[in-house]
């Protein structure tokens, strides 16, 4: 039995550290709290025999910006992919905006409607124009009239700075532009939460900034965001909460301020050193 399961008041904890820890930031209360939009408790996931996520307990409040970092293979991508069921978990509960994630396809679809996702490899649909890419979600899933959806799509596209390219195909855009379209596509579903899975890792250095600018603006407008990234400058600027993961568990969970100035964990300090001073 792990401490985390007895101490639901802890915002995030990794097993044994929880009970002794007094410096847990701004602990939101129980699951019933209306302010909590994503509530993950006792999450465990295995790939075959391999234990990838261990006893993850995590709560995200509305308008909170969470940045997840950690070495590769630490399970951070897997964690955010379990939230909209791109990966199945074996133990624990995930609740998004009051809907519990179960095998029931209706629950999964309800959650996916509220959770937008941006992928490392953009994953735009190459056979559709930029506009059709953005329109696809609202039209097919939300059942929005096409005219209205196109209006909405154009609005989002100009917000990410791609307004004029709407008639082109994804293959004709640069990586940075494609990623911004992908953000617009996710936003067009008008989600309550946005998940970013290493959105800048596949980009050339000169294109990273344009994508981060869009994300920064999104954060300023008050979107709830969970972001897996190695861009520590962006994290320092935007994040409310930082999470450091290693070997499938949350090693450090701290307000951004504290995380960058005084990390408590040795592993975390080493990781930050490596990333900030190379």
């Amino acid at each position, binding site marked *: 039995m792990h401490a985390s399961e007895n101490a639901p008041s802890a915002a995030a904890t*990794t097993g044994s550290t929880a009970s002794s820890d007094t410096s847990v930031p701004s602990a939101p209360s129980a699951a019933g709290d209306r302010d909590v939009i994503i509530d993950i408790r006792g999450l465990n996931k295995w790939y*075959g025999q391999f*234990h990838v996520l261990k006893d993850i307990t995590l709560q995200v409040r509305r308008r909170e910006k969470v940045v997840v970092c950690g070495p590769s293979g630490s399970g951070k991508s897997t964690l955010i992919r379990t939230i909209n069921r791109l990966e199945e978990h074996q133990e624990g509960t995930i609740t998004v905006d009051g809907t519990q994630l179960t095998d029931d396809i209706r629950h999964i679809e309800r959650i996916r409607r509220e959770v937008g996702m941006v992928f490392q490899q953009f994953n735009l649909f190459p056979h559709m124009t930029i506009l059709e890419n953005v329109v696809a979600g609202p039209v097919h899933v939300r059942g929005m009239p096409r005219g209205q959806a196109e209006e909405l799509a154009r609005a989002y596209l100009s917000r990410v700075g791609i307004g004029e390219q709407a008639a082109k195909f994804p293959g004709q855009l640069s990586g940075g532009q494609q990623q911004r379209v992908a953000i617009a596509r996710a936003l067009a579903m008008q989600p309550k939460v946005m998940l970013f899975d290493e959105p800048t890792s596949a980009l050339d250095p000169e294109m990273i900034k344009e994508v981060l600018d869009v994300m920064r603006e999104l954060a300023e407008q008050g979107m709830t965001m969970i972001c897996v990234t190695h861009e520590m400058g962006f994290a320092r600027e935007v994040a409310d909460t930082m999470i450091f993961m290693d070997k*499938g*568990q949350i090693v450090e969970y701290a307000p951004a301020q504290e995380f960058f100035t005084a990390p408590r*964990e040795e592993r975390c300090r080493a990781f930050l050193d490596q990333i900030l001073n190379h």
Partner: protein
Amino acid sequence: MAVDIPDRLPPATSVGVLGWVRRNLLCPWYNALLSAATAFLIAKAAAPFWNWAVTNATITLDPAVAKRHTGAAWGFIREMWPVFMTGIYPAEERWRPLLALCAVLAVAGLTCVRRLRGAGWLRALWLTTPVLVFACIRGGGITGLPEVGTHYWGGLMLTLLLSVVAMVAAFPVSVLLALGRTSDMPVARPFCVAYIELVRGVPLITILFMASVVLPLFLPSDLDLDKVLRAMAGITMFFSAYLAENIRGGLQGLSRGQYEAADALGMGYWTKMRVVILPQALRIVIPPMVNNFIGILKDTSLVGIVGLVDLLQVAFATTSNPKWFGRLAEAYTFIAFWYWVLCYGLSGCSRYLERRIPSAGK
């Protein structure tokens, strides 16, 4: 300081035999239904075959006894299998194809020894083997063996001979065709394109008919090709076009840099092709060429239509024997077994080569 949580094993329902069965056969509910339906289908189809081939079958050599059983009479295969292998090749000379086969296998085995690869004498051996095999099987002339004409050849031996000869003969032709098609020579290029497209557009059987009835008209009347040679010519013509397309794929799969580097060294066209381009291009196309060979092997069964007795046609020859009259099912099962083993083995070989040969030109 955070303590590592030790790895645990996943819940029992998701791993092991139980988890596997649950995931792959039973969950969700319609999957279980599907499994049941599939199992029913397999049982329904396999049971009669099993009963025929095993439960009710006999292996007796006595047709009268075999008639009392409802299943297969494998005694027919037991008695006739040399015919399936060599057709009507005289029984007392059957050791000669066997010897030839052993020789080829021995040379192939020697090639598999890594240390011997690339040795000069091995190459010489490879070059002389076809001549030796031909001399051994046909006999006559200086060999001192009684001559066995090609009209006595048949069965699996003929099938293999036809496909190997077609492959070996088609290879140089197809390299030339592919080079011609990718070049910009004024006469050769249109000719190669026309030849390849014409041959790929028509069925093999028309080419075989052409080789067996039209080709003799083209040749001087004193030159008389026998049936087997004509079929070989037809199959070679047919497959050189397909092979050429594969080789063209290999030529175009090489990066432009290779051509440019060879040009920069001041090589002429033929030197460039021989030294730089072809060795790389041919390496890439080995797996598709093996697939091509599978195609040849299967399609040699068509020579039966122009009157040769290959592995497939032996079925008619043996079952018209009054002793084992009408045992077609056994014959086809035996033939299918051979074709399947050869083709499946070769396709496994092609998959293996595909994994081992990195695609060059990167």
